[in-house]
C-alpha cells in the first residue's frame, strides 16, 4: 500500500523530521516500510514515476546547453510536475533562425533571447516554449544556417 498526505507550511521549510507510527497491528503481523518519499505539491505523482522518484533532486532553476543544427529535433529532458515557461538564448546564430515556434530573425552579433517567464525578447516574434507537465521540451523546427549555440533556462514551479 501507498499512503500519502500533503503537508502545508506557512514559511520556507529548512528541515522536516518524519516519524512513522504503526497502530492497531494484529498480533503476529509486522509492518515493513519500504520507501519514504517527499515531493512538492498537493498531489503525489501517483504511479507514473517521476524522475525524482528515481532518487533525483527537485526544484530550482534548470539550464541546458548545447549546439543546434538546421533541421534537428531538439529535446530538453525535464519531466517536471508543473508546466513552466522557458527562456531561450541563441549565440553564434549567423542567419535567419527559428527554434520551436519562435523566430529570432537574424540576430545582431549572432545573439538574441526570448524569455517566456518575463514576456520579453531582444528580437523576433512567435511563442517562447513552454514545458508541459510530465513531458520533455520538444523544439521540432530549427532554421539556422550552419549551427547556433542554444541555452535554455526554466524554473520548476511550485503549486
Amino acid at each position, binding site marked *: 500500500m501507498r499512503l500519502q498526505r500533503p503537508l502545508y507550511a506557512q514559511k520556507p521549510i529548512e528541515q522536516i523530521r518524519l516519524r512513522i507510527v504503526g497502530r492497531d497491528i494484529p498480533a503476529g503481523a509486522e509492518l515493513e516500510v*519500504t*520507501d519514504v518519499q517527499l515531493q512538492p505539491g498537493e498531489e503525489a505523482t501517483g*504511479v*507514473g*514515476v517521476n*524522475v525524482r*522518484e*528515481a532518487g*533525483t*533532486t527537485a526544484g530550482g*532553476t*534548470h*539550464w*541546458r*546547453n*548545447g*549546439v*543546434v*543544427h538546421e533541421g*534537428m*529535433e*531538439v*529535446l*530538453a*529532458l*525535464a*519531466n517536471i510536475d508543473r508546466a513552466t515557461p522557458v527562456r531561450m538564448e541563441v*549565440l*553564434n546564430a549567423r542567419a535567419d533562425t527559428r527554434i520551436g515556434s519562435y523566430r529570432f530573425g537574424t540576430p545582431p552579433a549572432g545573439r538574441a533571447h526570448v524569455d517566456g517567464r518575463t514576456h520579453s525578447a531582444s528580437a523576433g516574434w512567435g511563442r517562447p516554449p513552454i514545458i508541459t507537465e*510530465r513531458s*520533455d521540451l520538444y523544439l521540432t523546427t530549427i532554421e539556422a544556417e*550552419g*549551427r547556433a*549555440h*542554444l*541555452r*535554455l*533556462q526554466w524554473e520548476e514551479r511550485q503549486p
Partner: protein
Amino acid sequence: MSERVWVWVGHMGLGNRIRLVLDQYGDRLTDVSIFGWSVSATGELTETFDPNQLDQYREKWPHIRWWGCFRNMDDPNDGPRAIFDALRDSAGARSRLADQVGTMFDDYPWLTGVDIDLESGGDTRSAESELIFEAVVDRAHDRGKLAGAALPPLTATGSVGGENWVRYAQLGAMLDVVEIMSYDFAWSGSAPGPISPGFWMEDVYNWVTSQVTASKVYMGVPLYAYYWRLHNYPPELGNTWRGISGTYYSFWQQFTGVTPWYSEDVQPNAGWLVYRDPESRSMWGFLGAYDWLEPGMWEDNSRIERDRFAGKNYAVRYGLPAGSPQWSLADNSAQESYADYQLHPQPIIDVNGNRAGPFRGFTLTLEMLKREPVAATIIDDYATSDQQLGSVYTRPDGAGSWEHVDVTDAYKQYRGSGRLQFNNGFGSQSLYVQGRAQFATAGTFSVYSQGFEAELRNDGRLRLLRDGTVLETAQVASRGVGLTAQAGQAVLGLRVRENSARVYFAVSEEGRTPNVIEVTDTTPPGGPTGYDATATVWLDHCYLGDGWWYMPREAVEVTVNGSSQLMGRYQREDVTWDDSNRFRPDDDIDEWETRADQWTEYSVLDWGYEHWVGVPLELGEQADMQVVPTDHDVWWGRIIAFDQDGGIIAYCNDAQAVVHWRSRAEHDWGLAGVAAWSLGQEDVRMWDYFAAGEFPAENKRLDE
C-alpha cells in the same frame, strides 16, 4: 495496435520500480519472461531468481503469460560458447536439459512455456543447434506448454555479432514464438550510434518475416542507454572500450546535470541538450561538447566532396583512378585540397547558474572512417566503359572474349572468359593486381603477373602457380555460381616482388583482404599482368598497383589557430616514405605487419575517433580551423570540441521511441508485438504512453 507486450524480468532482481510496473501496469503487459535459470554444459538448469516472488502479480493479473527463461551466459564454469557447443555435441546433455525443463514445469505449473536464450553460437553448426531447440520444444509440447526463444538479430546478409548459426525458417517453424533481440547493433565496444538503428531494424524484420510467420514474432526493443567516451583514446583512460551502458534514468540524470559523470573538481556540472535521431527515433546527445560541426559545414573548400551514408554525413577527397602518364603511379597526395571551418566553443551555464567551461582545456575529436592502405594506384577501374576495355586491356583470346555490360546506369561489369590483360609490359616492376568477380559458370578465375598466377576455383580451391607449376594450394570460401549481379563475389589479389609472391582472398572489398598464400623463396620468371578465366566470370573492379609502394587512407592534417596535428596516422616501423605520401616496408612483408600491436577501434570497418588533446582553442573565442586531407579516401565526420577531461556521446530510447517501434511492428510487419529488454531500465512514462489516452468503448466516438 499490436497488443502484445513482452518483457524480461529477473536479471536485476525486483527493485521498487520493477515492482511498481508489475503492480500498477500489469494490464499493459501480456508476456513476462522470467530470466531465472542458467544452463550448464551438461544441460543442468540452476535457478537464479525465485519465481515465487512474482506470486502477487500473477494473482493480480491472471491474463499475463509467464515464461521460464534459461540462458547460457551466466554459468560459473563455462562460457556461453562452450555451453552451446557441449549441448550441440551431446545427446545426453540435450536430454538432461529437456528433463530439467520438465522439472521447471513441475515446479511452476503456472508457466505458459519455456523461453530459450542461447547466444554466442558462432557462424556454423546450424543443424546441431536446432537439435537443442528441438529437444526443448518437444518436451514443452509434450507437457502441453509453449516454447519460445530469444533469437539473435540477422538480416538477409547475416549477423553483425557472429551468430550466423541462426536459421530463422527452421527455428521459426518449430517454435511457438520468437523474440528477435534487435538491439546492440551499437554497443560498448562498437562505434557509437543508435542501439537499434532504423535502417537495420527494417533489414532485420524484412528478413525475419520472410522466414517466420509474422504473428509469431516479437520485435526486440532496447530500454537502456549507452555512453561512449570520446575525449581521448581508451588506453589513455584505462579502458578497453569506449562504451558503457546505463538505464533511461541514468541518461536523464546525465543530461539534466543531476548526477554528473565526472565529479565537480574534474569538470563543471551542467545540463545538456538532447537530440532525436530521425531514423531510429532514439534520443542522443553530447556531454561536454562546447561546439561541434557536421563535416559539410565548411566556410570554404577545394577538391573536397561531401555526402551522406547510412545516416551519417562525411567529407572526403577521392583518389585519382590512374597515373599520368598512363601506367605510372598516380600522385594521390593532398596538393591543393583543404576544407576551412570556424569553431567557436561557447561558455555554458552550469547547474548553479554560473558561466563555466573546461577547467584545463579542450580536446578536438574528429570522427573518421579510416581504410586500409592500398597498393599505390596504377589503374583503378570499376569496369568503366567499352572504350576503357579497349584501351587499357588487350584480349589475347579474341576481341569477343570479354565485353562491357551496363548492368544498371551506375553499375557496370566486364563479362567474359579467357585472358584480359593489361596493355603494358611493366618490365620487371613489382606489381599488385586484384580483381573482384563472380562466377557466371563453374570453373576458375585467375589473376597473373610476372609469371605467377593466383587461381581460384568456384568450389574454393585456391592455388599459386609459377610458370604453370603449382607452388601451393589453400581452401577458401566457395563461391556461388550463376547468381544475380554482385552476389557471391570473390576478391582475388596477387602481389609479386623480387623474391616473393603472395595471394590474397576475401569475399568483399570491405576491410582488409587477407593474405592466404605466401611464397618468399622464389623469383618471378616474368610475363604480362592481367586476368584469366576458364569459367565465364563477371568482373566489376580491376585494380593494378605497385608491388612495394602503398598509399595510406587514414590521416588528415588539422590546423587550429596556427598549430597543426596529423590525426589518424598509424605508427609504423621500418618503412620509407616518398614525397607523394606513399610508403613502402623496408623488408618484404605485408603492410599491416609494420603496425602490429597498437590499439585500434574495435572494428576497422566502422567510424573511429581521433583526438587532439590540448588543441589551442579558447573558451568564447572563434577559431579558424583547416582540414587538409593528407590521405585520400579517408572520410571525416563530425568535428567536436570536447572538454579534455570528459566528453561523451550517448544514445537511449525514451517512451516515444519505444511507442514508435511498437507501432511499426504492427503496421509495417504485422508482428505479434514488442519484447522489451528489460523491465526496470525503461522510461516509466512508457506504460502510460502505451495506453495513449484511449477512451472506453462506450464513448470512443469523437464526432458526436
